[in-house]
């Protein structure tokens, strides 16, 4: 049942095996696909398995793994992401590269921690799976908490103590916050409507993924001229573009003119043209003690005088940004934004 994290090599082997199994079992009736009626209906399925997104831990038909150029940091959890689009339809591109999913689609994201990050294929604890269901009424966000062989709907949120060994061999712990269903909406809302965050063309475009999704029949062919966002961890990409990609995916879902933090006047979308709105010499409005006694969100050339970096580096509720989904500091993200502000003139 559990959507096991499968590294590329193993995925290849698995698909070869699956193909062989399919040949051997060609006389048997095909396994049931994803439950389309459940996605598009108006119930709140209590168990993740009811959707049949995964069969024996493997993605069902038309459930396709995808990756983001730059992901949202979630307390060092690994994330496995899947798109499902029902047979007979496909997602289409909007004018700005946003992807419009047809009713009956789903986005599925599982959060897991390895026992030891130096052995990513070793034992692993899957904590939760969040699904976004595209219904006629709009998107619906449901968090499922894993327990045994299935995940159970938990709309009220939860805190879990989780330990793992990180890539440097250090023992780490996190008080992991499973968001409640409203908190899902806080980040996923734009102008009052629930929307996906990650799967935009510019954040999916790694040179071949858009083509693969089209070939799988899930998404239209990408229109020409879409500009890809760089990977925040790609040392070959320009620093400012990497930093702005990082801020886009980690901050701009709230810090945009249509987001939860619209009243802040701080807008961190990749395309934001106004330097003051991007934080440059911008005074805080409702930062409270988040300001740490500093005058500006970004003081060019002075990362340690910049509220934005201070709040990214803090783990204290009321100061820490993002407000949801982070209780640890993302050291790599802080280093990136530090370098970005340091080189600003």
């Amino acid at each position: 049942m559990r959507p096991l994290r499968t590294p590329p090599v193993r995925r290849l082997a698995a698909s070869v095996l699956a193909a062989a199994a399919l040949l051997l079992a060609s006389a048997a009736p095909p396994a049931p696909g994803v439950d389309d009626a459940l996605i598009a209906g108006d119930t709140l399925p209590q168990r993740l398995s009811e959707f049949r997104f995964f069969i024996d831990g493997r993605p069902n038909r038309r459930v396709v793994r995808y990756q983001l150029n730059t992901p949202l940091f979630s307390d060092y959890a690994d994330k496995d992401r899947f798109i499902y689009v029902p047979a007979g339809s496909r997602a289409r591109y909007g004018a700005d590269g946003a992807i419009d999913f047809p009713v009956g689609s789903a986005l599925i994201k599982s959060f897991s921690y390895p026992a030891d990050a130096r052995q990513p294929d070793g034992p692993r604890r899957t904590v939760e799976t969040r699904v976004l269901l595209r219904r006629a009424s709009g998107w619906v966000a449901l968090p499922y908490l894993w327990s045994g062989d299935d995940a159970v709907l938990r709309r009220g949120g939860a805190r879990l103590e989780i330990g793992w060994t990180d890539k440097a061999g250090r023992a780490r712990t996190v008080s992991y916050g499973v968001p409640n269903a409203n908190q899902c909406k806080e980040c996923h809302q734009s102008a009052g409507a629930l929307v996906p965050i990650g799967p935009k063309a510019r954040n999916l475009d790694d040179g071949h993924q858009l083509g693969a999704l089209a070939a799988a029949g899930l998404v239209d062919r990408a229109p020409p001229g879409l500009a890809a966002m760089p990977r925040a961890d790609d040392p070959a990409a320009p620093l400012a573009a990497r930093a702005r990609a990082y801020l886009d995916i980690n901050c701009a879902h709230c810090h945009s003119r249509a987001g939860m933090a619209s009243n802040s006047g701080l807008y961190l979308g990749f395309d934001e043209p106004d330097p003051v709105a991007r934080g440059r010499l911008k005074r805080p409005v409702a930062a409270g003690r988040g300001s740490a006694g500093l005058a500006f969100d970004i003081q060019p050339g002075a990362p340690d005088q910049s509220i934005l970096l201070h709040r990214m580096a803090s783990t204290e509720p009321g100061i820490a940004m993002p407000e949801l989904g982070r209780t640890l500091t993302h050291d790599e993200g802080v280093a990136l934004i530090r370098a970005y502000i340091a080189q600003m003139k």
Partner: protein
Amino acid sequence: MAAPAAILSCAFLSAPVAARVIAVAPGPDAQARLQEALIDARPGDTVTLGAGRFELTDGLSLDVDRVELRGAGPDRTVLSFKGQQGAGEGLLVTSDDVVLRDFAVEDTRGDGIKSKGADRIVYHNLRVEWTGGPKATNGAYGVYPVSSSDILVDKVVVRGASDAGIYVGQSRNIVVRGSIAEYNVAGIEIENSYNADVHGNVARHNTGGILVFDLPNLPQTGGHSVRVFANQITDNDTPNFAPAGNIVASVPTGTGVMVMANARVHVFGNTLAGNGTTNVLLVGYREAFDDKAYNPLIREVVVRDNVHGRAGYAPAFPGGAELAAAMGGTLPPIVWDGTGERVVARDKVTALTLALSDPRQPLTAARPAPARFPDGALPGEPAPVVLPAGMAERIR
């Protein structure tokens, strides 16, 4: 309690769904039980909070229209966020026509109760408090409606906010009445907002009592039409404990009413005393800004018919003591930077002008003198704020 809710459901819902009462008691797993009740509520429902302490670990949020969240009283039902591990506020409301009443929120790590894009919200008989007294580590705002239309804050007590106790930002059509704000940096603040009546409140022992501000580089600027009347604004003597960088960190300790960069603000019929800097401070925005739409000056500001007690005996801004010495020991109860248009004070006390030509000038450029204001008709008073029918009735 179910009866009025049922009546509301008949009035508003087309489908004949009976309004329900969802009762939540304090105790183990309060976080998830209360949050699930707030998610499960349907429009017209009432979620009741039992008497006792709810020990919460994360922020709560409500996103369903026409829900009433009701406790057993602000001293009997306490939502305690002492153990809060996440979220920027204690309770967040993002839906319309919500009533919050009869409970307390204590010791949130960020703001107390925030409502954003939540029209026709009623805050009634609530207490929001940081129980350790005024501290820079307290959350910023106690009651924090923002980006909304039609707001009623009634009979609310806020203590200890490191920014403003009651803060209304970027909103329109606002009534703040019958409330007590004490031991905050700012008691009550109306910022970048249109049409507000602030009356019948007590603002005491804050750094500044009642502030009416406008700031640049925000989605809604050009704050205007605010009436501050019949309030008790006394003994605002708590040393400013706001973290620097925030605009209220620049409010001098001992300020009664402060009007900054707003238009059509009328301050009348208040009792002002015991404010060591001054009772009424009228100024433009002093910082540099890059926002072509922003007007840093005060315009059409009227101060009349207020009762003034002792003030100006401990001016807490740089150069204030020297200025007071030059004035004979104390500052007058009304201090104006001298900038702006159609600024008129008609109280029976002396007003001081600093005679600056630009609000950004340093105080060394001041030429302090008794202010003279034009006789004749006062700038027109903003019309009283009228809230939509039914809003105030929900708390009768």
